[in-house]
């Protein structure tokens, strides 16, 4: 199934939780925040959230800025 991660198309072979998706992208343990379809997902809820086809996922972090 097709989802969008940070604006790019991403194919999933099988249904996964948000936590599993983040692990597969090497993001677990990272200081990130996640939005799915413009709704913020609180950190503790990652294992409970199932990714659905066409979901638009944004993963952000802090970088240098003024």
């Amino acid at each position, binding site marked *: 199934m097709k989802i969008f*991660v*940070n*604006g*790019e198309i*991403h194919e999933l072979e099988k249904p996964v939780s948000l936590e599993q998706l983040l692990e597969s*992208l*090497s*993001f677990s343990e*990272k*200081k*990130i*925040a*996640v*939005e799915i379809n*413009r709704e*913020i997902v*609180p*950190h503790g809820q990652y294992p409970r959230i199932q990714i659905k086809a066409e979901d638009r996922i*944004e*993963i*952000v*972090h*802090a*970088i*240098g*800025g*003024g």
Partner: protein
Amino acid sequence: MTIDTPDSLVIAGKSYSSRLLVGTGKYRDLEETGKAIEASGAEIVTVAIRRTNIGQNPGEENLLDILPADRYTILPNTAGCFNTEDAVRTCRLARELLGGHKLVKLEVLGDQKTLFPDVTATLEAAEILVKDDFDVMVYTNDDPLIAKRLEEIGCVAVMPLAAPIGSGLGIRNPYNILTIIENANVPILVDAGVGTASDATIAMELGCDGILMNTAIAQAQNPVLMASAMRKGVEAGREAFLAGRMPRKRFASASSPIEGLIL
């Protein structure tokens, strides 16, 4: 007031001994960023919120790793936001990213060339964020009426520009900055425009509560040394403001007494 009297900057109920706030953009690498922040003595440090790079090196050091929470107050900004919705969305993501953190730097930009603020959108975003329980430090232009309006909305600090972001042109309109300071009941910080240490001193001598800068340090030939210079410039300006300068006189006034001349 003596030189030993504590002189704290209080923002959203928290006291800071440093009046210099620094950004983390435009440095060569994280090592240089860390050294410059250390040399600046800053306790409040701005960061930007951006999409992660998919497929990045998992072991790569993160900016937040060099900014321990027990030592620095992180100030996420809304840089790059050109409308209210994006700015509010960015603040909410920052709050989640930083574990419920309330302090944010709001900037809603109106124009790519000048990076001047979109003041109407800034007012709108400030209202939404204050209602949503954020502590808002707001970047704005040097308009005293708008600065007052932002204070009335409930922003915890108002941060007028001294010159365009990243321009290093210095304090272009000291009289407006002075009027903003005189009208204010919240801290006023110059945000943007400082180019070198004397600019920081001039802003502080006007009575600013603090200065936020990034490019003037990061783009100096030696950023770590400039960070140290800025720290001193801010401190010197603050002390001169508190000391109260002598009046300006058109003609000379001898420093040595006339009495007892051997002539």
